[in-house]
């Protein structure tokens, strides 16, 4: 065995030692009888519940095997939450991007829109919930509204900043090479602002993910946020924790995806982090 692979094993061991210790302590605490298992279920119990929550309810009979695999309650909730995040994020981003590009490029438009943006931006998206329910009732419409607001402002602010920070030397070089306004915009300003825009999108989808859970806890009857609120009403703490764990995994997955997208789109960029 080489020194490198030994170091790899060592690093892996170092990474898992704390999580394993926490799980063992938690299990011991739950088994000790000091705490009510309804308040703090053991990790084994949570894992069992998670599996029950994950697996298909009926046994496989006919039709698509893949569909059957995700016919359980947890896959349904995950898909519901994820589609809301993606849908709301896309709405927010598609509105914020063109506005941000225009506000960044034109001082006149910036002066026109910026005051309103500055007034609305500090309002947490969650504060829109009462209005969202009043306007759109319950269900998907208020959820999409709230999530798109959560994504809108980070993307907008970063896009504006990105366009405004484009190095003048690129503009001069492009004009020297004969670029007109449209070429300058689409082939120089937008790509040069891309690192900022992508940072905005990462923050935006992070906010969208927070908002989807809150929206589901209040205004929707499906999804992971709804499920853990429902589980509280039945005092199913194991299901709450299983749901929280799933939310965490989903967030990690989204972040991983955004990071990969970032690295792929910015492979030309000098200072990208390799995490």
């Amino acid at each position, binding site marked *: 065995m080489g020194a490198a692979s030994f170091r790899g094993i060592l690093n892996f061991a170092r990474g898992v030692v704390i999580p394993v210790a926490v799980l063992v302590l938690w299990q011991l605490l739950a088994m000790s009888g000091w705490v009510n298992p309804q308040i703090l279920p053991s990790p084994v119990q949570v894992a069992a519940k998670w599996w029950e929550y994950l697996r298909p309810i009926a046994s496989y009979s006919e039709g698509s095997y893949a569909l059957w695999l995700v016919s359980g309650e947890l896959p349904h909730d995950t898909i519901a939450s994820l589609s809301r995040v993606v849908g709301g994020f896309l709405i927010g981003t598609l509105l914020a991007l063109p506005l941000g590009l225009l506000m960044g490029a034109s001082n006149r438009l910036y002066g026109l829109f910026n005051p309103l943006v500055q007034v609305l931006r500090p309002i947490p998206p969650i504060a829109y919930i009462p209005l969202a329910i009043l306007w759109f009732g319950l269900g998907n419409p208020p959820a999409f509204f709230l999530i798109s607001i959560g994504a809108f402002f980070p993307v907008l602010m970063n896009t504006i900043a990105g366009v405004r920070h484009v190095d003048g030397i690129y503009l*001069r070089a492009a004009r*020297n*090479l004969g670029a007109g306004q449209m070429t300058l915009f689409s*082939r*120089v300003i937008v*790509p*040069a602002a891309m690192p900022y825009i992508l940072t905005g999108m990462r923050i935006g989808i992070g906010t969208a993910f927070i908002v989807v859970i809150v929206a589901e806890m209040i205004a929707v009857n499906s999804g992971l946020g709804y499920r853990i609120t429902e589980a509280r009403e039945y005092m199913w703490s194991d299901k709450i924790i299983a749901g929280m764990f799933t939310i965490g995994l989903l967030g990690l997955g989204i972040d991983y995806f955004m990071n990969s997208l970032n690295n792929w789109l910015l*492979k*030309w960029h*000098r200072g990208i982090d390799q995490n």
Partner: protein
Amino acid sequence: MFIHIENVNKSFPVPGGEVIALKDINLDVGEGEFVCLLGPSGCGKSTLLYAIAGFSPPTSGSIAINGRTDIARFPGPDRGMVFQEYALFPWMTVEQNIRFGLEIKRLPKAEMNGKVDTLLRKLNLYEFRERFPKDLSGGMNQRVAIARVLALDSPIMLMDEPFGALDALTRRTLQDELLRIWDDYRKTIVFVTHSIEESVYLADRVAVMTYRPGTIKREVHIAMPRPRDSASAEFNALKKELSKLVMEEQMRYTQTEIQGYTAD
């Protein structure tokens, strides 16, 4: 006259007044000529180059390109510019950077491909055509910037201290390469530098500029045949002559700097 600069003045507003960057500049550059603008920092040599490029037109006076005074009011591909900071688009590969100007010109695909290929080979960039600028050395990047300008077929090349950030050996290699290109393509070159040696090595004529306000202090013709031997007596005599002219301005620059610090 190819580039005809007449009574050009340029001033910039600064807090509490204005700085006169260029004063009564008169300079002619003939077709196919290689002219160096030489002077210390702050003498306005880059300002003059930017005025020719059309980035920042003069406050008064005129710049005529091939007899037309309207051209230099705006930047354009007839006056290709090579910047000290390369100014390559980092999101484009080497090949895409060279292709960019041709795409703007809407050249037919086949002609475009042929042209890009020729330039990639001519400047020894073919192996690197898929790379991004961040993965190349400074010398390589400046080659790409030169190729990008050559692709435009512009009769005039404007170069703003293009080799200033390179090490001495790379610098000499690129100087030789530039002379070869100049010879092959018969370009008119205006080349800004603060290196006396570089100006003597490259130019047909060196215009020495004064420090603030920037004026043309003296024009020195360099008739030595190329390739020039930088160790020859003639070369060193010219260096000495230019050095005397430039160092007087450098002294004024240094004194102004010191006064600037001690005035506070």
